[in-house]
């Protein structure tokens, strides 16, 4: 590429050189002009946005970090420190004091190592599932399939471990148990329901439609109440059925109905020719689904699927209604302590930050996945 044209020279057709773009359209100046100042409306919006950032961000940062008090034994100590400096900020000392409660709930202190081991086991099990370049992925997957049972054994106990009743579960650990179980359980169930609803077999289709529409037509809270109270009426007398297990089942069923509809949308977006091509080559129904249709349908559905997962994860806080202590429940219980009264903002901001970090991780992963699966069509 030559960078200049000679003055006054005329070029034969086909020999005109490639020129660099005008300086005003590239670099920082070009970017600012293009994106921030391209029109009057854009200029006004840029100024408004800058004002909004100036109003919101510095005070928030001051409250969260610069003026915050991280150590102290009571609310009064926090307040004393801030009064001395003449500022207002968060009293994170409170969260620090209650941190273990936030993480483990009422899980017995001597057994908390089991929660930690379970957490790292979960992370290890997720690696080969989420990252396709894991070395020895096939073998690692077998580990991932076994991990849930090991984690269940670690958390609940028995078989040589001190049993821990599930009503001791609480805090972030409870959120993770409900969220991860719900996600892992609802994806296959949701796919199965979507395939059932798209099936040619009328009886199967009917069952799936009724299930999906019923679950979607009822608020999750109602289902949780049903799980906590009414299920006993339906079960034979004398059967005890762990409350957490019932909640896990209800949350999984609830999310699977939504997922089924998301996946059904993806299935409908696949051109009919794909199924025909698979049929014409002699692939069986399950083969064509697994190899051809579902990989494409799920790829299209990723934003919707992750949306449902994020919703499920946050909805796990609703278990507070039936007396379980998720992070919000732990926070509210902590606020009853007279030494720390009146710090509800800190509690809820802390819980919000925890959920935000979890959910943004899911959202970013879904973007990564979409990009990775893009094959130029």
């Amino acid at each position, binding site marked *: 590429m030559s960078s200049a044209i000679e003055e006054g020279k005329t070029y034969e057709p086909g020999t005109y050189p490639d020129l660099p773009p005008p300086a005003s359209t590239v670099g920082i100046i070009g970017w600012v002009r293009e994106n921030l100042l391209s029109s009057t409306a854009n200029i006004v919006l840029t100024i408004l946005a800058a004002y909004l950032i100036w109003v919101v961000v510095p005070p928030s940062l001051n409250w969260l970090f610069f003026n915050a008090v991280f150590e102290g034994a009571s609310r009064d100590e926090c307040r004393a420190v801030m009064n001395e400096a003449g500022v207002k900020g968060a009293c994170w000392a409170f969260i620090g004091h209650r941190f273990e409660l936030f993480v483990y709930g009422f899980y017995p202190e001597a057994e908390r190592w089991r929660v930690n081991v379970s957490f790292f086991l979960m992370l290890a099990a997720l690696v080969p599932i989420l990252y396709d370049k894991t070395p020895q992925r096939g073998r690692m997957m077998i580990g991932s399939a076994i991990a849930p049972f090991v984690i269940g054994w670690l958390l609940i106990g028995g078989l040589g471990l001190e049993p821990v009743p599930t009503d001791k579960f609480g805090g972030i650990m409870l959120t993770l148990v409900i969220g991860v179980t719900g996600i892992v359980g609802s994806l296959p169930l949701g796919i199965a329901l979507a395939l059932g609803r798209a099936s040619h077999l009328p009886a199967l289709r009917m069952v799936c439609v009724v299930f999906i529409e019923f679950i979607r037509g009822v608020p999750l809270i109602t289902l949780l109440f049903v799980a906590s109270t009414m299920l006993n009426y339906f079960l034979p007398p004398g059967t005890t059925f762990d409350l957490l297990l019932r909640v896990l089942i209800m949350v999984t069923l609830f999310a699977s109905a939504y997922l089924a509809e998301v996946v059904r949308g993806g299935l409908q977006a696949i051109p009919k020719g794909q199924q025909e091509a698979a049929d014409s080559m002699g692939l069986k129904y399950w083969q064509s689904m697994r190899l051809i249709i579902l990989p494409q349908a799920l790829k299209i559905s990723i934003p919707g699927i992750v949306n449902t997962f994020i919703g499920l994860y946050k909805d796990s806080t609703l278990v507070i209604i039936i007396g379980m202590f998720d992070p919000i429940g732990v926070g509210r219980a902590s606020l009853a302590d007279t030494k720390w009264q009146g710090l509800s903002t800190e509690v809820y901001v802390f819980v919000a930050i925890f959920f935000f970090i979890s959910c943004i991780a899911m959202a970013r992963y879904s973007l990564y996945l979409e990009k990775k699966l893009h094959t130029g*069509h």
Partner: protein
Amino acid sequence: MSTPEAEVSTQASEGSNLQISDEVVIKIRDMHKWYGAFHVLKNVNLEVNRGERIVICGPSGSGKSTLIRCINRLEEHQQGDIIVDNVELTNDLKNIDAIRREVGMVFQHFNLFPHLTVMENCALAPIWVKQVPRKEAEETAMKYLERVKIPEQADKFPGQLSGGQQQRVAIARSLCMNPRIMLFDEPTSALDPEMIKEVLDVMIELAKEGMTMLCVTHEMGFAKTVANRVIFMDGGEIIEENDPHEFFDNPQHERTKLFLSQILAH
């Protein structure tokens, strides 16, 4: 740039030299099909011998695509018999699978699997349907990709190829199953003019090797070059069938004449 038609027709009459055996591979008897209340195929009777190259043409909506889609059961017929390679098409899934293993199909819109590479597209069915070991399936795939002259594209995704290249991959994909019969459903209709020739060349090559072919197409140059029989359909019926020279030079039926005058006029 010469038009594909002109190129193709210089090779005319080669088709008549090819061997056709007496063995009947497709037998369609008194076959009817309805879409709901719409009678789309009426009393179709057709026998195809091994090695025959049949071109099916006719106005749109005449049922020609539906006819060849019935042969591998992408469409279900309601009356009459279809016997492919001595296997009768019924609701028996075993028979359908057996026939689909023997019959390859190439579609108007290629229908390649966009999430798989060219190589994976080709090796998929042999691996899963015929339980061929992966390595062997990939070697076969490479062989056929070389035959359609795009071995260098093996690791690309279909979305990165031109229409003509995609259709050639689709042909290679069908050939990987080693079919005894190939069905072509308007294989060049979705292609830009300059890409039609590369696909037709591959099909001509295939015909010369003795493949039994049924081809729905409007490429009359192709019909003249390789077909040994041309079938004209209208309104769901086979109106006329003849060898290509008779068909084009001396059409019998009024509707055939009208159709030929319309497609050859420009």
